[in-house]
């Protein structure tokens, strides 16, 4: 258990986050499916079960949050935004770069940017690894398995 516990106070913060996520998705689902035909029990329309599931999700979310109020206080492990941002940027960037400039450019982007996420990374290792993995990926995925992606930008 990495999250610190403080004696004397209550409120399970991870439970609150869970409740927020569940209720949020339930509400989102209800809103997105607001125009769907409900139908009857014997002839259910496309909106029938989604609505049931969304309401259940909201109920479960509320229950998790409500019970969390009475638990001993537990904090959420402190998030470190750096790895999150870097990894997501590397991945999303990969899709765009690979689509327009080919696999090699995409892979180099992904691996170079992705390496920044770990503060242990050493430049020489990263460069070698990038070159090796890019070559391996091009051979195995594009040439070997036939993934539909150009290797070079031109």
């Amino acid at each position: 258990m990495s999250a610190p516990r403080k004696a004397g106070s209550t409120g399970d913060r991870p439970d609150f986050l869970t409740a927020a996520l569940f209720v949020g998705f339930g509400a989102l689902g209800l809103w997105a499916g607001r125009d769907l035909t409900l139908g009857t029990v014997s002839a259910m329309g496309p909106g029938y079960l989604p609505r049931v599931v969304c309401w259940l999700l909201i109920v479960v979310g509320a229950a998790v949050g409500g019970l969390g109020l009475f638990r001993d206080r537990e904090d959420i492990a402190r998030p470190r935004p750096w790895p999150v941002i870097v990894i997501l940027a590397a991945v999303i960037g990969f899709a765009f770069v690979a689509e327009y400039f080919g696999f090699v450019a995409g892979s180099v982007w992904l691996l170079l940017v992705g390496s920044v996420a770990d503060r242990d990374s050493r430049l020489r290792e990263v460069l070698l690894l990038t070159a090796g993995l890019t070559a391996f990926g091009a051979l195995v995925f594009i040439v070997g398995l036939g993934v539909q992606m150009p290797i070079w930008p031109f």
Partner: protein
Amino acid sequence: MDFINLLALGFGEALTPTNLGFCLVGALLGTLIGVLPGIGPTATIAVLLPITFYLPPLAGLIMLAGIYYGAQYGGSTTAILVNLPGEASSVVTAIDGYKMAQKGRAGSALAVAALGSFFAGTVATFGIALAGPTLSSFALSFGPAEYVSLMLFGLLAATVLARGPVLKAIGMILLGLLLGMVGIDAGSGEERLTFSAMELFDGIDFVVIAIGLFGFAEIIENLENHEARGVLVSKLSRLWPTREDFRRAWPAVLRGTGVGTFLGVLPGGGATLASFCAYSFEKKISRHPEEFGEGAVEGVAGPEAANNAGAQSSFIPLLTLGIPSNNMMAMMLSAFIIHGITPGPTVLATQPEIFWGLVASMWIGNLMLVVINLPMIGVWVKLLTVPYRLLYPAILLFCCVGVYSINNRIFDVVLAAGFGLLGYAFRKAKCEAGPLLLGFVLGPLLETNIRRAMTISHGDPSVFYERPISLVLLIATVGMLVLMVLPSFRRTREEAFQEEEA
């Protein structure tokens, strides 16, 4: 006689050079990720799912199955040698295995683990071969009502038997069901919950969710929990157990196999639950319970046999009923679907070579694993010293190419990144993402069957309790819910998983 013929057919399929090759690749990969902490079989299979599309169906399935049970072998190696359980299922092995290693009996522990696993794997494989045809002929008489009850039972049992709070797991299943509803509704042809995004009309791809929640989220979490992994490898002694170890280990292996095979079949069961239960079982019946935690050979033999048997027998519900019992099996189900095969009773009749080939390959794979693990142990131990900073770029690349290759579009990669963020949030909220996958793969099946059952009965819910099989399943489901409310059962359930916290 029929049985022998079918098994022979299976071995014929499994022994072709291609299938044998992929069996070896799967077993090797499984051992590798089992040894490496921070990479689990779920993430690995998620990453490799898109690749199996390019392989023949049986070869792909054989490889994925090999990864799953291979990881059970690999995980025990590191648990024993360096007290780092590579997988959740070998957490208990580390308790006594590492103590044995410290006392200079590492070789003995490793050999007992490997041989016990092999024995358990063999028995469980025969279990699948025997139970498969019986269960699936039974399942052929199932109507929509029975399927609905079976799935409700399965989903709920999966939350009760798995780790973690039940209410959160139920919520995750519901979220999975909701995600499974995105796309064109099969009943009416209307699009729903798509936010008018054309890319979502075909629904969200399983691989996108799996790689987001398990691949990306796991990488982010590992990078966040940055810690120097000081690896201290115990010295390897003789690799053959003493006669005394043998005498004490084999009854434990037998019991572990029994516990594992049984628990693996249950929804939510599988390797982890099996090994935890086997450990507490051994401790309870042992005449020297004080030795447990100090290097008791039974504490290695029992759980190791159980986790392998459990890994193997969790294939039974998937292959015979088409119902995955844990998130690993949800992955396997989607591997079947990628190839247009819907696992279940009909596959056994129409494509016997798939079922029997897979079963035969499991036994061959287990044999390979003994060879891979015992003499090559030194190689795997060396791999432990590879730092994570050299590993995660490769995983990242595999994930990205895998997601992109499903439909060759940017949208899927961005969506997977979004699920990565969601998975990260769920880890902060202490929610296991596994049940979400189960709900997602079972969702469409559940919805179709509910609607069908209600249409047939003209909206009368009595179909669910007037048909005997359905009634029994519903009673079992309600019984489980009642059990969960009882405080004494909740305590036992917590105890079953308590060793992990130690």
